[in-house]
């Protein structure tokens, strides 16, 4: 089912009553297509969990509407929306077994939705099989590993066949290896069930790796929606550019003069169509290629070997993000004895942003 948010706004009264309200979600407007896996991404406190709560119905918006398909669900209580919710700390009922945990949502169904015992058991087993925990049905949550607990939580959310599955930082409590495994698992389950899934995370790598679409948020304001690669390649503003990608993008102060980009005094790139003036320049680590005659010269700090690639750390007076980190193929790496290093810049890995609005400035090359 597609989910549509229209002018969604949520304000909280400030704890200090003299201060203005906190706007957790500000005039949100977007559509989540049916059957996709969406990553809702942003630094902590950006309002992504509030957005999730608004979709689930746990919180009521200050203004704006929420639609599931064509139905306006803004006024519906959570239990009537048909959503499944999974939490960072799993939120399994510690006194119930895995089976009882999965059965719990089904036992709440009333009236004509009420199921017979056999059907409930069957559905629970089905959900358990889907997340591959059907051999652990009689265990208590405390007897399971973190990854297994998260699977149970997912099974519990899936068992009533929700129209939308909401995952709130589902991987954050897992260790690195399990996190990788479980995120693939989530991708697989979503593919198999085809349930529209919204997945909140502050980890951009996590979001990029499994989402069909990512939604980047900051301070309650929507920054950009798009396919992960598109958002990475064409960040709409400086924040998105900085937030996506590891190692992070390198940012410089630069100036455009006569369609040429200057960083410091060096003329480093042709930027046709960009208006003259001071700009922020973002260059991805992979946007630097080692080039003896390259126009961009930096002071070499050190060379970090990572196997296939090598990370070259250097400094430049125009750089505002500390040192410059560039990734080059290991075959081409400098031996580290040089004082300076010269690069040429890849234009499609270089982004210009306005100094005032931090919005993207398009150019051609």
């Amino acid at each position, binding site marked *: 089912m597609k989910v549509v948010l229209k002018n969604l706004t949520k304000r909280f009264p400030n704890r200090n009553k003299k201060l203005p309200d906190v706007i957790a979600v500000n005039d949100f407007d977007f559509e989540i297509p049916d059957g996709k896996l969406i990553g809702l991404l942003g630094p902590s406190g950006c309002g992504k969990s509030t957005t999730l709560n608004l979709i689930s*119905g746990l919180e009521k918006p200050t203004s704006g509407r929420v639609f599931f398909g064509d139905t306006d669900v803004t006024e519906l209580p*959570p*239990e009537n929306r048909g959503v499944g*919710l999974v939490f*960072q700390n799993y*939120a399994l009922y510690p*006194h119930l077994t895995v089976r009882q945990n999965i059965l*719990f949502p089904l036992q709440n169904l009333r009236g004509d939705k009420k199921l017979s015992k056999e059907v409930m058991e069957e559905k629970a087993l089905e959900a358990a099989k889907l997340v591959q925990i059907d051999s652990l049905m009689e265990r208590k949550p405390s007897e399971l590993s973190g990854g297994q607990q998260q699977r149970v939580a997912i099974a519990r959310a899936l068992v009533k066949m929700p129209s939308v599955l909401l995952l709130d930082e589902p991987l954050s409590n897992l260790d690195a290896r399990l996190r990788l495994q479980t995120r693939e698992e989530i991708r697989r389950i979503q593919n198999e069930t085809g349930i529209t899934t919204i997945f909140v995370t502050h980890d951009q790598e996590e979001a990029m790796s499994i989402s069909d679409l990512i939604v980047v948020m900051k301070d309650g304001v929507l920054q950009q929606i798009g396919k992960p690669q598109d958002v990475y390649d064409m960040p709409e503003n400086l924040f998105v550019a900085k937030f996506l990608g590891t190692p992070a993008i390198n940012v410089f102060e630069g100036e455009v003069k006569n369609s040429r980009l200057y960083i410091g005094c060096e003329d480093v790139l042709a930027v046709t169509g960009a208006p003259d003036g001071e700009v922020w320049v973002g260059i991805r680590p992979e946007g630097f290629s080692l080039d003896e005659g390259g126009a961009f010269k930096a002071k070499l700090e050190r060379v970090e070997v990572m196997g296939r690639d090598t990370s070259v750390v250097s400094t430049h007076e125009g750089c505002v993000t500390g040192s410059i980190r560039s990734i080059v193929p290991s075959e081409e790496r400098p031996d580290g004895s040089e004082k300076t290093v010269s690069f040429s810049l890849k234009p499609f890995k270089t982004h210009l942003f306005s100094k005032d609005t931090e919005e993207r400035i398009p150019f051609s090359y």
Partner: protein
Amino acid sequence: MPELSIDKRAEARKKTVKVLTYVLLIFWAIMVIFPFYWMLLTSVKTTASYDSEVSPVFFTTEPTAENYENAFTAVPLAKYFLNTLIFTVVTTVVMLAVITLAAFAFARLEFRGKNLVFTLFLALMMIPNELVVITNFVTITNLELRNTFTGLILPSITSVFYLYLLKENFEQIPDELYKAAKVDGTSDFKYLTRVMIPIARPTLVTITILKVIECWNSFVWPRLITDDPNYYLVSNGIQELRENGLGRANVPAMMAAVVVVSVPLIVLFLIFRNKIMEGVSRGGTKG
């Protein structure tokens, strides 16, 4: 080597300390155990042999159960027992219901005035029972509830401290559990009964045990509110026994009654030792 002799002396001192430590521990253990032993011992001596002792005898060769029969027949000990049982069970159950609902409201529900009421409740924790017992005595007397279970039970139910303990415990249950249940359409009451109560069960058990001990030993309020032996609790029964009953005439029978009264709680303690000690150290005080 001089170091060696120092080592030896230190070793000897260590040993002395250890011995003294055990002497102290054993001394106090005997001081605690002895009254229990004496009570048990006296209760199995025959009246004749007890009365004919010239100096106290520390053991008996002919234990008898006769005193226990006397204890149950000479005074309505069984009746006192039953009364205490009814009083304890009803008081504890009603209190649990009352504090569970209130603790849930404080811990989970949002409503106007909550913090104010909770602060008032906390303030009540500092009020000593002696201060309110007077009016309660007058209230119950005026309602003509003296010598009734209702009169015994009603004022004994209130316990701000246990309410506080339970509320603290409820608050430790993560918010997400509530959210998950809400999304699944669980009503507040069902969430309380099916999720919170089972999770908080250890605390509820602790509270129950502490309240049972308190009820079983309560003396002041029952004494004020009952003068009809049909409603005596064991404490009052013991007191009655001592002052007007067979106490002076038949010490072994009196001790038999004392044993009978003491045994249930000791058994309860031996079963729930850890729970009780943990519960008490979390904030129980005597009385």
